[in-house]
């Protein structure tokens, strides 16, 4: 694999660059906002580059998927079952998640789409049917049941922002 250089862009994000085997210099600018740009260095002026693609978070994920760099870990941890309009999912609580330290009551009443936490796995211990005053911690795995949209919303909530 080619060496990837990483440079901070203060206030913007991170810039990655590497040279392909064919000799092209590829640059990726990863914005804090999740936006992402794929650029190519120009041959005339190696310092400058021109934009090839501008991607949002979802696009970038799709492109990575297609190129084979699939986010394996994410796929493996997400073990989702669906039956008759109901979805059940095991959702880890992210390290920076807003909901860490919040009660289940707060979390379940944030979104209109209904989904409930039916159990929590903490330190390999399973806590079935936690009360609504139960507070989640980073590192917990919540077992969530609800409509597909509700579970999706919950997944986003538990993951980070």
């Amino acid at each position: 694999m080619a060496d990837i250089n990483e440079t901070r862009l203060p206030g913007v994000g991170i810039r990655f660059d590497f040279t392909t085997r064919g000799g092209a210099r590829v640059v990726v600018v990863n914005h804090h906002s999740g936006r992402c740009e794929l650029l190519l260095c120009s041959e005339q002026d190696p310092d400058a580059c021109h934009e090839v693609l501008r991607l949002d978070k979802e696009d970038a994920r799709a492109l990575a998927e297609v190129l084979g760099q699939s986010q394996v870990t994410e796929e493996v941890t997400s073990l989702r079952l669906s039956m008759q309009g109901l979805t059940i999912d095991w959702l880890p609580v992210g390290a920076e998640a807003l909901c860490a330290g919040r009660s289940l009551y707060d979390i379940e009443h944030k979104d209109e789409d209904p989904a409930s936490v039916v159990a929590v796995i903490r330190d390999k211990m399973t806590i079935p049917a936690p009360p609504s005053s139960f507070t989640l911690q980073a590192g917990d795995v919540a077992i969530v049941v609800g409509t597909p949209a509700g579970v999706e919303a919950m997944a986003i909530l538990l993951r980070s922002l």
Partner: protein
Amino acid sequence: MVGIAAGGAGFLLEVGAVLLVLAVLARIAARTGFSPIPLYLLAGLAIGYFVPPSIDPDLISIESQVAVILLLFMLGLEYTADDVVGSLRAGVGAGLADLFLNFTPGVLVGLALGWDTLPALLLGGVTYISSSSIVAKVLDDLGRLGNLETPAVLSVLVIEDLAMAPYLPLIAVLLAGGGIVTALALSLAATGLAVGAIVLARRHGQLLSRRLSHPKSEVVLLTVFGLLLLAGGAAELLSVSAGVVAFLVGLSISGAIAERARELLSPLRDLFAAFFFVSFGLLIDVRTIPGVLGVAVLLWGVTTATKLLTGWLATRRVSAVPGRLRAGTALVARGEFSIVISGLGVAAGAEAGLAPLAATYVLLTAISGPLLTRYADGAGIRLARWLSPRGKAAERAR
């Protein structure tokens, strides 16, 4: 009762009309790809000249204070503590060159105009600080974020913004009539506070961020905004500028909560900042501008050259000639902080010529900077060809 209602109506009508004018200007700015700041300033000048509004000056000064707090807070949010440390490590030489090259012309011109030292120091600040918001936007619009010279340019901006931490308290105390010793002590204290905030943010940033977060937007908005005003007020009591503390609060927040705060507070910032730029224009008597135009143009010419040199020096190790030229021209635009600095002087009643000169100067640089850098690409390639020995020979042969 009737009087109050009528007064209320007058106020609403005035503010509403101004906002609509600004909305039109922002639309024009968005379409043409320019920063709206110079347009807001022009609008303020025009409104002040043709239809002076009757808004209470006290209200304007409170509004300006909140605008400065929000502007600096959002700027601090843009940077993480790691960005700051990285920039300082990589760009301290360029930062010092930048300070020397661009602060000095302002001070010298101020002194040459027969001003006191203090307003001259303010003018130095005006010419020193490039507009982070304009430069970042221009780099993005021109697709230069991936360029090799861009990290160095952004580092220069970070260091300039950081330099405000000792500079603003120093100026604030001197303006309030405090002695130089107190001013230096406070300036040192603010620097210490900045270092402390950065260290804390790097070690325990997660803790603060987690304490502040909540799934409900209004909780986050009220907490963060309330904290900001409190911290700003406490800072003003100690006469350390409120803006600096807001900047430090912004720096110390990172991660998920920073993202939320940015989302929630940027509309507020846009609103207050737009009013701030207009009211700065309002305070200036347009008739004083022709008198300062000559000086402003001179200052513009000199400091455009010095910023070019700054960019050239900052990127001389990483980039070839075209990159260096792009970096230098990108830094030309001055904007919000030049206005903030001269606004401090105006509020304290220092030197009547400062405000019109600063406004004219910001208009010149904010408009010419983005244009210059747009055409720097072509010029850079030509310059590189001319500078290289082979190019010169080819030129001669022709």
